[in-house]
């Protein structure tokens, strides 16, 4: 595994000057992943913050070949690129010893929801690529609408905390489990606060023979109503509360990569975000307890699977 020093010496493939927000979780994730690739890499991005924020014509932040074609089809687009690579290798149009890595980036809207079909198809077909979901828990690019990844109780512009209905009433979709059900060689959850864990996972994902998947929590000051300077801390607390478990499934074996010494209450994470403030009112304790209970049971479930072939 590359050390921080080694990673820092590699080329910066994602240039500054992009228009992503201050405190956005996406740029550190993308930079780390591109450095971890350590070689030629081609990427596609689903419509969303990452695409809009990095390619306002005639500028581009991408010092690698990059394409955006639509919202719901990042996995299908990368399938085509990777297949053309295979065809060219077979026909001798790319040198045999040249290895190119392929990454598709999508937000939670483009992955959990509208792009799920294309993702499922590409995973099932076994293309050799890495899919990276930056999960900020809502359609942030279009103005904070609820997605299948929005946590229970969170207020968004389409699931506001009203007088009668207190934010999103449904549990979030467990996308990582859905992806794992495709029996791909490598899938994991990561966080930008833990660069060592994330870069190690990226390396494993790139080495996998077949599709690999990383679901990465991505703090969003705009949609979380959190302080930009606290984004990395917000990611860390999400992990310390076990809301966002760091685990991987490698060739079917689940491994929890980080177990907090002391599991923090979810209210610690909620406190630093405006989207949950209604849940911290005494009269809404019932909903807060429901959220905590769900997180606890999910963590217990993961603990029971730790080290096992699932």
């Amino acid at each position: 595994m590359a050390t921080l020093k080694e990673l820092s010496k590699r080329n910066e493939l994602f240039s500054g000057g992009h228009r992503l927000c201050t405190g956005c979780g996406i740029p550190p994730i993308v930079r780390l992943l591109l450095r971890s690739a350590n070689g030629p890499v081609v990427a596609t991005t689903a419509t969303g913050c990452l695409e809009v924020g990095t390619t306002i014509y005639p500028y581009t932040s991408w010092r690698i070949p990059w394409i955006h074609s639509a919202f719901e089809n990042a996995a299908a687009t990368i399938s085509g690129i990777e297949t053309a690579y295979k065809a060219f290798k077979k026909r001798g149009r790319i040198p045999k010893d040249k290895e190119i890595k392929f990454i598709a980036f999508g937000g939670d809207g483009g992955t959990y929801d509208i792009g799920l079909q294309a993702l499922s198809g590409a995973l099932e077909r076994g293309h050799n690529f890495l899919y990276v979901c930056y999960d900020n828990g809502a359609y942030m690019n279009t103005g904070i609408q609820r997605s299948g990844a929005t946590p229970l109780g969170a207020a968004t512009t389409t699931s506001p905390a009203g007088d009668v209905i207190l934010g999103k009433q449904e549990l979030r979709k467990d996308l990582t489990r859905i992806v794992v059900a495709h029996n791909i060689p490598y899938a994991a959850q990561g966080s930008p606060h833990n660069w060592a864990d994330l870069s190690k996972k990226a390396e494993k994902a790139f080495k996998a023979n077949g599709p690999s998947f990383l679901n990465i929590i991505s703090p969003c000051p705009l949609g979380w109503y959190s302080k930009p300077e606290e984004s990395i801390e917000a990611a860390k607390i999400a992990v310390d509360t076990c809301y966002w478990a760091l685990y991987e499934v490698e060739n079917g074996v689940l491994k929890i990569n980080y177990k907090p010494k002391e599991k923090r209450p979810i209210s610690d994470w909620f406190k630093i975000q405006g989207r949950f403030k209604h849940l911290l009112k005494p009269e809404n304790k019932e909903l807060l307890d429901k959220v905590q209970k769900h997180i606890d049971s999910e963590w217990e479930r993961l603990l029971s699977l730790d080290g096992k072939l699932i």
Partner: protein
Amino acid sequence: MAITVNTRQTGLTGNSAVAYAMKQINPDVCAAYPITPSTQIMEEFSSYVADGVVDTELITVESEHSAMSACIGAAAAGARVMTATSSQGLALMWEMLYIASGMRLPIVLADVNRALSAPINIHCDHSGWIQIYSETVQEAYDNLFQAVRIAENENVLLPVMICLDGFITSHAIENISLLNDAEVKQFMGEYKAKHTLLDTDHPVTYGAMTLPDTYIEFKRQQSDAIARAKDVVAEVGKEFGARFGREYGLMEEYRLDDAEVAIVILSSAAGTTKVAVDEFRKADKKVGILRPRLFRPFPHKEIAEALKNVKVVACLDRADSMSSFGGPLFNDVRSALYDMEKRPKVVNRIFGLGGRDYKVKDAAAVLEELLKIAVTGKVEALIKYITI
């Protein structure tokens, strides 16, 4: 250059002929999803892949939307790419069709014409890229080779759709003459894209975000390219003729020289109409046909020129635009004639939707009506459904 005109006839359906042409072209990548009536094309092509007759990489995607998305990815990577679909599949692809064209990617698609739901119907109907319509199995086969050359021409760089009628052409066996593999290879040449995603030493950004300060320039360039495509279609049709003995133009004029009335019609139904025209000609009635082969871009000047001496024209649309003002062919032809000093009268007859038979008698009835209008000068129904 040696030219072999293969006179040996082979009985093939439209779908089989298209699949065979694809085999001969041996594209780098194909991505497709099954849909009636085009399914056979990819089934047969899959067999060519499974048998190792071609070394194309086949992506059996989970939807037509993903089929075109994968084609876009592969084409941007520099590959020669093909797919086939029909109707609902084309509709589901629509978002990506527009993107493929906007990104100037020379993808070739065989579209087997079928009605669109609702109500659901798997039979023939006409539905939009550079669009070339095929009357016969032979033409569908020949058009596929030309489509690749047109799409990849550096003055064009746009995707091309070759269209053949569902069941009527896709499933009917016709005797056709196949081309020689080596000569196909020579005609096709190698495709070398200028900017590709796989050239990692020269990174390019495809599909950037454009704001109001730049978007319209992209569209202007795309529009200029599709306008240039017209001449390229004509050149390639001519070259194909010189090499293989079957020349293709922008349109076919059938007994139109001295015609007083004419039917303008696309695709397989032109064959049926020709039979009716021959019968009328035997009775010295001056009738003819104009069959546009190239529908997009629309060769408006050439069509106006071809119809300039005709008194009455019926545009037969196997489609309705649901604007209450007729089908797409009617609207385009009528508009093309507007600037002429002496314009023919133009009526619209909508026929054969959802695979309804269009018979010689139907064509004859239209011709009779046109001859009557030519005499009286009176149009009783501007737009009318027939074959009902």
